[in-house]
């Protein structure tokens, strides 16, 4: 398993649009599970509505993890996504 921690800088947090894009990005690695965790609650990155339900705001710390055959690529893609969008 690969993971990294990230502090959200986007003023709106993980709002609808990045959540949608995030889910789309994660779905590209279908055989690898990508998860986002905040305060002990973990959801799959592909679960758009649950992801929004996490209520991740600016300044929140999240842990992003990937597990599976493509975990290396998935985590790199996720890192890039977070840095560019969140």
């Amino acid at each position, binding site marked *: 398993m690969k993971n990294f921690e990230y502090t959200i*800088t986007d003023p*709106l947090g993980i*709002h*609808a649009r990045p959540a*949608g894009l995030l889910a789309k990005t994660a779905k590209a690695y279908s055989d690898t599970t990508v998860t986002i965790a905040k305060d002990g609650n973990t959801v799959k990155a592909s*679960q758009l*509505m649950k992801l929004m339900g996490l209520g991740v705001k600016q300044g929140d710390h999240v842990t992003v993890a990937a597990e599976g055959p493509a975990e290396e690529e998935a985590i790199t893609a996720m890192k890039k996504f977070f*840095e560019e969008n969140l």
Partner: protein
Amino acid sequence: MIVIQGKGVSKGVANGPIYFFQRSSTTITDAPAADIEAEKARIAAAQEKSAQQLNALADKAREEAGDETAILFETHAMFVEDDDYVECMMNALEEKHCTAEKAVELAGEEFSAMLAAMDDAYMQARAADIKDVTRRILNNLMGVTEGGIDSDVPVILAADDLAPSETLQLDKSKILGFITQGGSGNSHTAILARTMGIPAICGLGEALKAEFSGRQVYIDGETGQVAIEPDEITLAAFQSKQAKQQEMKELMETMKGQKDVTLDGREMMVYCNIGSPEDVTAVQSNDGQGIGLFRSEFLYLAASDYPTEEEQFQAYKDVAAAMGGKRVVIRTLDIGADKQVDYFEMHKEENPALGVRAIRICLNRPEVFRTQLRALYRASAYGKVAIMFPMITSVWEVKECKRACQKVMAELDKEGVPYRKDTEIGIMIETPASVLVAEELAKEVDFFSVGTNDLTQYTLACDRQANDLGKFFDPHHPAVLRALKMATDAAHKAGIWIGICGELGADLSLLETFLAIGIDELSVSPTSVLPLRAEIRKSIAKTCTLEKLEC
């Protein structure tokens, strides 16, 4: 006459008959379904159709209403295909043996309730998106098409609240304005109405009754007033406002795409002042030729700690890229005086306007300065960025700023990070000292920009925050205008351009004076661009006089 007061969320005056939005009444039965697999297939088909429609709507929105709205529909399309949402429907089918309609309704309720319960206004507002998506799937299941306006004449559309897809699917040639019982300034209806330039009033509540349908109404999206069958006095007030609005609109249209040039061929650069990346839309829709002042304070004022290089870079880059090669003058932080930020932990000053503010903070705190300069130079690779330093009084300050720039450029060179070496550097002329040494300052920089509010405050020894100075605070004072002339002469002698980015730039009564002085650029709020352009195009520069400089 019936007058109802709501909240104006999109400006403009309109009048016409009220038309109540017809929403298909959906009666969903609790009856059990005969064949669960068949119901599953129906959901899958409706889901696919909904996603297709939403993607088509996104394309339509991209042309009609802009990217923001298009992205909204793309996100809706993603909602439709969300695994949990669909799973929730399928589970309902399995567990309750209900119809596809009931299952979709239940899933919609569950997820919109989840968002509505969050302690975040933005997420709460998204509950409406889920409802909108749910209604779309239901309509597709039941073969219902909705949203038609059954009227031969254009109408004022009334509704309880309109979903974003509903507003976009409407035949806009038939809509003069929106009035809704619910909604807020943040609702999509309000946002879309503003983008489309249609007046809208929301929050009218129960006072807006279905029985008003067909009656003549005037609405004012600025004041939030709705007047049904207005009396003569009210009618006259609405009509005069409407006439002015029409006149302005026509002027705007004829001015778009025109050059900012006087009758005798003198060009003036008409730029815009902005306070955040979002304002770029207004610059574009008002045809601003560049950005003459991008205040970087929003990054500092909105945060609880120093904004990072990355955050700043993103904001500057967004604006530079959006302006597509047009000049974007970004002013380094102008904190202090009337703009205080806790985490800067500034000492309390008796006289903050004369204290440690703006460039003085930067020169005292090289790390804060360096972070901002790095972000600015990195952004320079994405457009035509110019860097401007505020509150300059001495030549040594400018030299020190330039040294800081060179250091940052050397760092970026070493790191192999792209930036533009020819990024322009300019200063604000807002202190009498800078005017008096303007000739020397002009040799150090690429441009001047005059901050007229501070220049007036410092020249006339009048606190701009004090309300009771009245006639003593006079930006038209010959001393202020002569200072402008001195700075302009110094700039032109050194072969650099000079602009005005203070409020005075939009003061049309001074345009002739500015032309006579030889100002090259006026940076004004986006909505002032077209009126200013109209005035410039009527002027003759060579007949303008300096009479206002006389006492």
